[in-house]
């Protein structure tokens, strides 16, 4: 049942994955996600608090700030958890909360209280970047102007994944001294979160509007300008790795269902999986999936260990998984045939999720452009 994102997990990692899988299957299996997609209420606070107790939200946080990981590489642990989540279409801002927690952990003390709530699953958060640095073209941008003791934020950003349930947002804004990031509470004056419809009915996407929202200097994360640009890049890379890990889990399960179908579906007196047309399609798809798993794990490992090629691998992972994931879900659809075209079959839930994940936290084009920037840079 495990997605095996890690080829050889340690015992501690395996324990984290086993408890996470059991928690999901007991609490929010795909059948319940489907109910939420059809209109039932989303996961409650208990879901996130239990998840917090399993360690989901502290993996990228220093121990000094209350975090902790299963191995010496928290991002690798988080990616492995993300894959199990993605296989079961878990909703909620897992990626966003971890990205924010990671940023706040680096920023340190001033955000200790929020950080503690995030780690414990008592609050969720996500990152509102919009079109900053070109990440999501057309999504809108936030501007910040300085006032005594802080900044005033204005603007609207669309396409914020899983923003509905968040208590706090890490907002990237264009400020007087370049890029600036600040933490805002979603219930603060001048902040409005508006739901959007979308192809992925297992997640809640929204738009965030800031209308003269005030933040104090103590809400600013990192030094505005080039320092924040570097933070931005790292956040985008972490988000890419985690959303790819979720997507790889989703691909894994869509593929697993197609494989099972090919073994039991009979046509022309044979299981359809005995035909080379289906067998070879699945073999090629499996190759893509194994490459995706290998690449996402490698990116998590390198980026989590601050290796020199971590960012490059993260961009490559998003480019590969974002584009080839669409091919994989098409191949699965072809194996399902007509049954995959019915609402009752789960395939479309996976297909929808993958289409949305492909552009979340930077479409493949954006990540490819980041790699192009590095051409010729030895």
């Amino acid at each position, binding site marked *: 049942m495990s997605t095996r994102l890690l080829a050889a997990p340690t015992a501690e990692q395996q324990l984290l994955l086993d408890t996470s899988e059991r928690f999901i299957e007991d609490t929010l299996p795909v059948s319940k996600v489907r109910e*939420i997609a059809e209109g039932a209420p989303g996961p409650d606070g208990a879901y996130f608090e239990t998840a917090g107790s399993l360690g989901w939200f502290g993996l990228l946080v220093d121990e000094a700030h209350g975090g902790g990981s299963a191995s010496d590489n928290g991002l690798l642990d988080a990616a492995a958890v993300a894959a199990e989540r993605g296989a079961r279409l878990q909703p909620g801002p897992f990626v966003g909360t971890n990205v924010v927690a990671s940023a706040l952990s680096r920023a340190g003390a001033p955000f200790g209280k929020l950080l503690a709530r995030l780690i414990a699953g008592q609050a969720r958060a996500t990152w509102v970047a919009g079109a900053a640095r070109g990440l999501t073209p057309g999504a809108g941008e936030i501007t910040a102007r300085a006032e005594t003791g802080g900044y005033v934020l204005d603007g609207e950003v669309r*396409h914020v994944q899983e923003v509905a349930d968040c208590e706090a947002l890490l907002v990237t804004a264009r400020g007087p001294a370049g890029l600036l990031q600040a933490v805002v509470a979603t219930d603060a004056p001048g902040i409005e979160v508006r*739901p959007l*419809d979308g192809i992925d*009915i297992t997640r809640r996407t929204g738009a965030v509007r800031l209308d003269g929202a005030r933040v104090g200097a103590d809400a600013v994360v990192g030094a505005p300008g080039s320092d924040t640009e570097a933070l931005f890049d790292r956040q985008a890379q972490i988000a890419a790795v985690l959303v790819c890990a979720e997507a790889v889990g989703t691909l894994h399960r869509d593929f697993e269902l197609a494989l099972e179908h090919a073994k039991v579906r009979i046509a022309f007196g044979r299981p359809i999986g005995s035909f080379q047309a289906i067998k070879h399609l699945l073999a090629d798809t499996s190759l893509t999936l194994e490459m995706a798993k290998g690449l996402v794990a490698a990116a998590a490992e390198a980026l989590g260990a601050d290796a020199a090629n971590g960012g490059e691998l993260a961009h490559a992972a998003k480019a590969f998984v974002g584009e080839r994931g669409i091919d994989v879900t098409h191949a699965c659809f*072809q194996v399902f045939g007509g049954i995959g075209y*019915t609402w009752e079959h789960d*395939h479309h839930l996976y297909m929808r999720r993958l289409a949305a994940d492909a552009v979340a936290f930077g479409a493949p084009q954006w990540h490819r452009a980041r790699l192009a920037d590095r051409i010729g840079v030895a």
Partner: protein
Amino acid sequence: MAGTANTPEVPAAGSAEVTAAAPAEVQTEVQTEVPVAPAPPDGETPERFRARARAWLAANLEPANPSARGFRESAVSDVAPERALHRRLFDAGFAGITWPREYGGQGLGPEYERAFAEEARAYRLPDFGIVGGTTFRVCAPTMLAHGSPAFLRRHIPRILAGQELVVQFFSEPDAGSDLAGVRTQAVREDGRWVLNGSKIWSSGAYYADYGLCLARTDWDVPKHRGLTWFAVPVGASGVTVRRIRQINGGSQFCQEFFDDVALTDDDIVGEVNNGWTVAQTMLIFERGGGIGPGGGSSAPKGIAADLVELARSVGRLDDPAVRDEIVGVHVNDVARRALVARLGGLMRADPASAAHVASYAKLAMGTYDPLRANAALRIGGADAVSWPVGEEGRTAAAFLDGRFMAIAGGTNEMQRNGIGERVLGLPREPSFDSGRPFRDVLRDASTWTGRVPAAPPSEGRA
């Protein structure tokens, strides 16, 4: 938050089940009536016919509204006015212009039909949605080719009078690509037939009156040999029609369940156990609409106008990557149109090859439609996957629908087999079900080992 691309009329949870009460009622009411069409006047000529049609159309029909979306998915009640409109055509002698007089048609030549079509172009004709095509271009022609005179006298006039809409009960949940692998069965009992099983992917069955149903009537012969077609009243006792909710939220297709449905010999189309012959006729009519004489003249102008508009709407028309994406789609688009024109030429040069060569057009759709939908998704970016509540996510819906032609009406794999064996002349796939009782085929398939029995010496060395 559950809002999706487009879910117009289907309740959010589960699928609608209808037992097609309305058509059944209509049917009971008119069971015995066989409408009679007027005979064409003596000495009719295409010119006189045209003048007569022109006058009648002007007096009786409303002008066409080209911007109207057309009937596609509708409630049963919406069909009643269309039926009435068709009845007026019938009563005026403009339905079934080329169909035999004895079955309610006009028995005239194709030039009369062309004349009527030209005159009628500006008027709003009856619109039965997808069922109209199935009834008049697939099912009725198949009936005319194989039905007994008594059967045709009962059904065809009513079809022409708009009283009977007929769909196909052909595919099954366990027989998709393997069209002849039918498991729905009709058993002969006390002089009648008892139908049990299930059919699927019947377009618009929920507002049709009859389904032409392929059922197994002999399990102890090879699969193509024990099949029989029945005309099943949709409103008959034991028939349940369930609309299938599609991944794009629509529900045009249905699944039917047959629970001891009683049928008689009168309901049979063609001969008992000779249903595959009828099926092949039906498949030819089904494919008939696929390929026109060429796509050149109706080709849209310019470069992939829909994608250009999409790119403009998301503010990315100046992005070189997006422009190259659009050009790539355009190149495939024009190559597909040129293919269709070429196939038209090949078919005219060799009509016997038409059915096989048509597979290229189908495979082109099944291959390039998904690529085009993916390209649109990339161009649309974040705007393609989420949108303001209440708006339509058209790019997303097209993406979800993108594989339709790769699967429906013969999968890409079936087209490749057809091209490989019937156009290119490649050696056949080994067949494990063509020479054996279907009962045994089903039993052995469940314990497939890949082992091929050695040929008995006499046969192998023949």
